[in-house]
């Protein structure tokens, strides 16, 4: 069985402020992106993460790209990418398919990548990232770099074969992999309980003889604590950990989803545990932040996002001649 961790860890004021700042920025970005989609400035589809920002910042605080730590995540990756340090400009330009985007406009919302920040891939095929995280962990194990690799995925992903094979291989090879599940209660429009026979994703850790940990996904400090512990364990050679962060997406699955399937009151109940509020309230209580500072942070973020959006709008599209670049090395 899995164990639930309720950490009482308190990070220093600077770290808290950094996390809070990142969460506020992500929140602001997601809101703007939704607008840009509705205005058809951004095309295709998008999967916003607002409500889940604590997982992004708690996870990112553990990653040290210099050492070789790496992350694979999913199409719901804007928050993870920004928290890992993907420049906002690179991201906004990529969202619009501009040449200045991190993927030169070829990837878009579902494939944000920044090798320099350890984000080695954002996968739009459910489950595809986990086996690849193992490969990065294998490099670390063989080269003895002390690096780890974290794969982030959702609750619905625990039902696909790639998930099983990857966690099994990591357990058998004792790879320095960390499997971080964002259980936001839904896989697309299906409630977790309708597609899985066990109450928690972490309950499945026992099938691989690895630790299964459940954490409050609205609490950035708690997420940091469990991911840090799993990372330390992985670096020590003890193998992978399966972490389940209980969280919630404040919007539908993707741009086109009104999320009508949600029971009345569910959203409100989770908004009451908004990760930004959870951390900022704690900081205010600890005398590390004032309401007015918080308001200013939000306004500054909105302004930065607005400026960056305007900048990105003015960026050129990639030249058509570049369409077949980067297929081959």
């Amino acid at each position, binding site marked *: 069985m899995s164990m639930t961790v309720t950490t009482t860890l308190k990070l220093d004021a600077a770290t808290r402020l950094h996390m809070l700042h990142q969460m506020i920025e992500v929140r602001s970005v997601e809101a703007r992106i939704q607008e840009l989609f509705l205005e058809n400035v951004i*095309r*295709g*589809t998008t999967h916003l993460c607002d409500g889940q920002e604590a997982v992004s910042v708690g996870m990112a605080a553990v990653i040290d790209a210099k050492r070789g730590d790496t992350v694979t995540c999913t199409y719901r990756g804007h928050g993870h990418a920004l928290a890992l340090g993907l420049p906002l400009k690179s991201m906004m330009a990529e969202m619009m*398919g*501009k040449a200045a985007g991190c*993927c*030169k*406009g*070829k*990837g*878009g*919302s*579902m*494939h944000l990548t920044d090798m320099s920040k350890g984000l080695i891939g954002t*996968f*739009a*095929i*459910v*489950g595809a990232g986990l086996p690849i995280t193992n490969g990065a962990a294998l490099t670390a194990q063989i080269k003895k770099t002390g690096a780890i690799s974290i794969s982030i995925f959702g609750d*619905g*992903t625990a*039902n*696909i*074969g*790639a998930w099983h094979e990857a966690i099994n291989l990591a357990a058998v090879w004792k790879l320095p992999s960390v499997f971080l599940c964002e259980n936001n209660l839904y*896989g*697309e*429009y*299906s409630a977790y309980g*309708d*597609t*899985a026979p066990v109450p928690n994703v972490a309950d499945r850790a026992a099938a691989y003889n690895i630790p299964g940990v459940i954490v409050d996904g609205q609490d950035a400090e708690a997420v940091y604590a469990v991911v840090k512990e799993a990372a330390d364990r992985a670096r020590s050679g003890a193998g992978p950990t399966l972490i389940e962060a209980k969280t919630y997406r404040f919007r539908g699955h993707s741009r086109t989803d009104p999320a009508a*399937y949600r029971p009345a009151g569910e959203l409100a109940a989770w908004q009451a545990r908004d990760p930004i509020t959870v951390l900022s309230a704690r900081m205010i209580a600890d005398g590390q932040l004032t309401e007015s500072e918080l308001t200013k942070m939000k306004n500054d973020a909105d302004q930065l996002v607005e400026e960056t959006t305007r900048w990105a709008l003015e960026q050129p*599209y*990639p030249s*058509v001649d*570049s*369409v*077949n670049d980067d*297929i081959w090395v």
Partner: protein
Amino acid sequence: MATITYREAVVRALDEELARDENVIFFGEDVGKAGGVFKVTPGLYEKYGADRVRDTPISEVAIVGAGIGAAVTGLRPVIELMFADFAAVTLDQIVNQAAKLRYMSGGQIKVPLTIRAAQGGGAGFASQHSQCCEAWFMQAPGLKVAVPSNPADVLGLLKSAIRDDNPVIFLEHKNQYAEKGEVPDGEHLVPFGVAKIVREGSDVTIVATQRMVAVANKAAQELATQGISCEVIDPRTLVPLDMDTILASVKKTGRLITVEEAVHAGGWGGEVATQVTDAAIWYLEAPVIRVTMGSSNVPFSQPLEEAVIPDSKRVVEAVHRALKP
């Protein structure tokens, strides 16, 4: 004659067949309660119940396998894989199991399974959600493959697919769901293996499928103003493939151009073209030209995506080249 959308044709076909035959069942990810990710299957869950219309976990291997086993034991399952690109996670169940079980068992087994999936680009879904995947399935003897280009064919071919005793891959083009078209009143069935001559012509034969049919027509109209007469053929099903109609046309026009929204290697155009150059080369008065995505992936950025997917301009150029003395 009613006018309905490509999307509505899918749900009408499913509705009619679910009503006609209690052995027909339908399942896939979010196809039930939510009515499908492409909003293609609304109301079926409410009408036919949780037993016959089911939502599944995200488990494509288990989904296809369940479809096969149910088909082998007497049902006529229709399953949805959502994006055709996802067939890659379960290709074994499709090409090694569904396609071969009958053969390997010496004819003891029958697999009346219909696998629906949405393919194609043009909407900014990037490389993992925009591919045309028919080639994966054409290579597996035992699988039939349908590629409807309009609402009437969606309706008539999907109903035929469900009644077929062989496994059928039914590929819908996700960028055509909103397209409208006329469908006959009453029961409408379209047989597999019968191509449709979309436009008659005498100078050049253009074979195209799905969204490329409209692209070919647009080119044909433009060329008509230049006094060039194009015959546009829509095979409608790639397995079986109606080569008789295509060969007859090429023998008349002496020129063949195929238009595919897919990479060049392995595309159905290669099958059409090589059958023609084997059986009718003496009728050819020009190079056989395949208009394809070449060797490109589908990029996210709009101008790049528009550059890789064939358009009428490229078809017109191909026709001009074929007509160069």
